[in-house]
């Protein structure tokens, strides 16, 4: 019988939650790396027992941990993330030049074909890669070296490269997103990059239709249709039919937030229905908790525009948590499982595509990331 393994990164350690295919009873292990910020933990699609974890702290900086046994044991691997050449400057919040400084790894994306190859999205924004299982990391400098790089400004959480999507049909195609530069695509394995932000409109920047400068929060893709992308931006949920060349807003009936719609951080796609997508609307700009104190996942079965709130099993009074950008995941069991974690330390799971929810755990540290592995 299939099993699932949920990998949870929190503000104070990592947790591994395992269940059989019914997803009713869960074994919880952790905290792994207690006291450290675990920005992201993700397994190799090729070898599910090979896990990579981003571990960092304000005191001791960045570490990368690797497991070869599904998280039972770990070993630190190389943590040297050095920008290629002279890093130069990007823009600071006030528009002045600011030196590029490595701060942390936000996201680890293992290769679809090789367990030793992993991409790392870092702050200040850059893309690194290891091809030896984490023994060494090299920057793909064409990303940071995109002609617009000197004009990128950080979002509130920093200038983080937080989203990496590998195209399962075109091995040299990579999508990434940076707060607050926008989305980019490489069609040559990461050597060169194209900004793919046409159609994004951000009223909070001087030129709302600028090539870069958009605060993209997250992107998602269904592997059967890699040309169709979904985006959760600072405001607005969008979709693209052409690998990001043009985006259209699909906010539809998402909750109205003082005349605007579509703020949130997570977005993900159903495992078997490429037009079924999930977001968690959040109030902005400063509040960053659910509308009306009700934690609601919104599901669209039409790829956007028409949304239904999913509430069964989720708190519908006095709920003021946030759901951060990497904190939603989808399993691939026949009855698709959806998972998300909150800054209040809950991890919620639905074993029926979002119709009903249950907390797997309630009292973890603030959840930074959630990934799930479907195991044979």
């Amino acid at each position, binding site marked *: 019988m299939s099993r699932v393994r949920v990998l949870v990164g929190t*503000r104070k350690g990592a947790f591994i939650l395992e269940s059989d295919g019914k997803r009713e009873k869960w074994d919880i292990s952790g905290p792994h790396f207690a*006291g*450290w*910020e675990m920005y992201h933990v993700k397994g190799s699609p090729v070898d599910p027992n090979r896990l990579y974890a981003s571990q960092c*702290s*304000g*005191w*001791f*900086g*960045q*570490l990368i941990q690797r497991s070869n046994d599904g998280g039972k044991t770990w070993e*630190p691997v190389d*943590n*040297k993330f*050095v920008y290629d050449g002279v890093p130069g400057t990007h823009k600071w919040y006030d528009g002045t030049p600011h030196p590029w400084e490595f701060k942390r790894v936000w996201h680890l994306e293992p290769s679809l074909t090789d367990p030793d190859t992993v991409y790392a999205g870092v702050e200040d924004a850059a893309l690194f890669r290891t091809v030896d299982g984490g023994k060494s990391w090299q920057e793909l400098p064409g990303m940071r070296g995109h002609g617009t790089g000197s004009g990128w400004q950080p979002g509130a959480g920093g200038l983080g490269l937080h989203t990496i999507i590998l195209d399962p049909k075109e091995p040299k195609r990579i999508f990434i997103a940076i707060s607050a530069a926008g989305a980019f695509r490489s069609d040559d394995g990461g050597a060169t990059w194209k900004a793919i932000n046409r159609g994004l409109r951000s009223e909070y920047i001087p030129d709302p239709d600028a090539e870069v400068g958009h605060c993209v929060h997250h992107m998602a893709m269904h592997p059967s249709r890699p040309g169709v992308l979904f985006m959760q931006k600072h405001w607005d949920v969008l979709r693209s039919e052409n690998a990001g060349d043009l985006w259209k807003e699909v906010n539809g009936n998402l909750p109205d937030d003082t005349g605007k719609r579509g703020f949130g951080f997570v977005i993900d796609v159903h495992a078997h229905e490429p037009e079924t997508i999930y977001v968690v609307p959040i109030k902005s700009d400063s509040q960053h908790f659910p509308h009306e104190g009700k934690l609601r996942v919104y599901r669209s079965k039409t790829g956007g525009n028409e949304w239904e709130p999913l509430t069964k099993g989720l708190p519908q009074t006095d709920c003021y948590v946030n759901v951060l950008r990497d904190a939603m995941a989808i399993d691939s069991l026949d009855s698709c499982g959806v998972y998300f974690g909150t800054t209040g330390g809950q991890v919620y799971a639905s074993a029926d595509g979002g119709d009903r929810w249950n907390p797997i755990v309630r009292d973890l540290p603030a959840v930074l990331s959630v990934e799930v592995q479907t195991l044979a």
Partner: protein
Amino acid sequence: MIRVVLPAHLRTLAQVTGEVEIAVAGPVTQRAILDALEARYPMLQGTIRDHVTQQRRAFVRFFACQEDLSHESPDAPLPDAVVSGAEPFLVVGAIAGGK
């Protein structure tokens, strides 16, 4: 032998308990101690000082003989009591620094 006391998180990372004893060739300085420490425990590279600049991380301090040595030159000789092993070299995580 030079005695080094690491903060709890770095003891866990290096898989050691209690003090670490390391041999330092040549003059005993902060740099010499950290070089020897990182050679023996490579997983500590980058956690006490920056990989590239070799600067002490902002929320890490160095103490010995009840003195704060954090702002001394990394190549300055350390007190005789550290060299003789009578006193440990302390790597301390600041009380601030977490979230």
